[in-house]
């Protein structure tokens, strides 16, 4: 007899949201950038930078939180016999969705988790991002209602399910083999930031520890910020949404206690005030998440439990980050990048194309 999964209950998901909110805010206190205790998009972008896939000097660091998310989920999946190696549900489409999800997120400057943390830190621009996220996911639900579907996965070799976890262990090995040298922007094969958000981080053990705990809890509870909004729009179900709201509330209270709450629109950390593009960037990201079936965090947890298609989405996001910075698509605190607006429009067209054309009924 298997134990009932307490994390799949209402209080389970709320507890996980509270945990993530508190520790994300604390990670900022412990060294991570402002309103960026955890940001899956930003952290994968930093990983792309440290590998030299882009050369934006201020965002280069192998974020141990990301490694922890995948490995924590893997551990939970093995402990509870839920590791199911599977893939084959239109991986190339998921790659493309990952690329554009990252581009959209970097126009806003954050994934849904960071949008929530920015709001909880008083950044009013996050409201535009969250509205864009909701709108993008709403478009996604219209496609889902019309039968949008990327097809079935097949079960596969356990080793295939291990690919992303092994890549993460490889990142950890690189981080340990080539640690940052004081005042140097290179260490062995890795690039490091001397200033900017890439130079701001909690210690390796703290980041990895929190990442592992979050990965474990999120795998058990199926925590997903895109699913939170999607399930409410599609089914009026508030299960996942209660976890997302708990995250915002917990981060807000923690920020108040440790003095990290600074309300306003101007001068917010790693944020810009171009409202239209904060909104539109997240419309693109939200639509791409909805079409891919999970927010960036959820894709990491799915990859940890053996979902190779989610792993392809993650790789798409890392490649997307490389493109976003090399092509000048990513925003900065000064505003959108030189080609950011064009990239959002192209991304929306690509996502609409995917939504309109891939609607084979699963049972036909």
């Amino acid at each position, binding site marked *: 007899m298997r134990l009932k*999964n307490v994390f799949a209950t209402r209080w389970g998901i709320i507890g996980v949201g509270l945990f993530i909110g508190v520790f994300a805010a604390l990670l900022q206190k412990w060294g991570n950038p402002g309103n960026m205790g955890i940001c899956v998009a930003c952290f994968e972008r930093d990983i792309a930078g440290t590998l030299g896939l882009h050369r934006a000097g201020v965002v280069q660091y192998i974020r141990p939180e990301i490694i922890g998310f995948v490995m924590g989920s893997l551990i939970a999946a093995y402990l509870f016999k839920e590791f199911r190696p599977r893939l084959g549900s239109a991986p190339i489409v998921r790659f493309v969705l990952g690329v554009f999800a990252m581009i959209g997120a970097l126009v806003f400057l954050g994934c849904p988790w960071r949008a929530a943390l920015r709001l909880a830190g008083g950044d009013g621009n996050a409201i535009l991002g969250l509205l864009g996220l909701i709108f993008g996911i709403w478009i996604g639900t219209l496609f*889902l209602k019309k039968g949008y*579907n990327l097809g079935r*996965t097949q079960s596969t070799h356990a080793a295939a399910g291990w690919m992303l976890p092994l890549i993460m262990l490889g990142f950890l090995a690189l981080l340990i083999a080539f640690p940052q040298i004081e005042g140097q922007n290179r260490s062995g094969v890795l690039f490091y930031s001397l200033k900017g958000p890439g130079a701001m981080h909690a210690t390796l053990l703290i980041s990895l520890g929190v990442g592992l705990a979050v990965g474990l809890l999120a795998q058990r509870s*199926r925590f997903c910020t895109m699913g939170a909004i999607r399930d409410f729009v599609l089914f009026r*179900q508030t*299960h996942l949404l209660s976890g997302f709201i708990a995250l915002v509330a917990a981060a807000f209270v923690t920020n108040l206690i440790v003095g990290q709450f600074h309300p306003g629109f101007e001068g917010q950390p790693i944020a810009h005030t171009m409202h239209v593009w904060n909104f539109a960037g997240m419309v693109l990201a939200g639509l791409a998440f909805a079409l891919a*079936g999970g927010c960036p965090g959820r894709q990491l947890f799915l990859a940890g439990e053996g979902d190779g298609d989610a792993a392809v989405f993650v790789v798409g996001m890392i490649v997307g980050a490389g493109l976003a910075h090399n092509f000048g698509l990513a925003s900065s605190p000064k505003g959108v990048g030189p080609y950011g607006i064009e990239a959002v429009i192209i991304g929306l067209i690509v996502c609409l194309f995917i939504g309109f054309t891939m609607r084979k009924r699963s049972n036909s």
Partner: protein
Amino acid sequence: MNTKIDARGLSCPQPVLMTLDEIKAGKTSEIEILVDTDTSKENVSRAATSQGWEVTDVSEGCNEYKITIRKK
């Protein structure tokens, strides 16, 4: 009449959408749903309960679950 839904290999929200479509079609009072992940099992059960149906049986096969739901 007993209706069967094969949602194996499909990720959420597909299994839930398929189940709700069948419930809303109103042609049946018992549905068997095949899924292959615990997440889908939980989501389908939660969705059925919210529609006033009850989960009467969950049996575990080789890498899959068969969920039986019945109209109360």
